């Protein structure tokens, strides 16, 4: 099942309001994405915690509707 880019962005912004998000549709099939996300919320926490915040913002869709989203995170 595919999830459109705008929907992914919306979900992330709901949980991480200051996020700068850049999403690429890698295969043009609305199913394989890479996302680059920066937020002040990432400052001072580990990569694992940063990625967990993103996963949590996607409310269980990661690993289900959304199979292929590779994530790069950084603080700002």
């Amino acid at each position: 099942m595919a999830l459109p880019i705008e929907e992914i962005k919306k979900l992330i912004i709901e949980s991480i309001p200051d996020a700068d998000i850049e999403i690429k549709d890698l295969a043009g099939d609305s199913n394989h994405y890479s996302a680059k996300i920066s937020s002040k919320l990432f400052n001072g926490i580990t990569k694992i915690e940063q990625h967990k915040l993103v996963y949590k913002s996607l409310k269980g869709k990661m690993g289900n509707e959304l199979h292929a989203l590779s994530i790069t995170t950084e603080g700002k």
Partner: protein
Amino acid sequence: MNTKSEIENIINKNDVCLFMKGVPEAPQCGFSMAVSNILKHLNVKYESIDVLANEEIRDGIKTFSDWPTIPQLYVKGEFIGGCDIVKEMFEKGQLKELLENKKII
């Protein structure tokens, strides 16, 4: 044995564990393949656990680590990350450093 103790048992018994889809010789997913290739490249001896062969481990490991995706890499009982983190650490030389510090390689 319940799934949680089974997982603890696996990660305590093996210095490096990779929970993946498929086996290193025939990964069933690109992300699992990427991580197993990195470990191979670094000459790491590791235990691989094929989650496709065990539905309880497949769900159990996600709860255990509070991490929704496979693959998952553990070193000396510690969760290191999924494909993105492992790849990033590898590219920055941090994975090699970690494995050296833990006397794995």
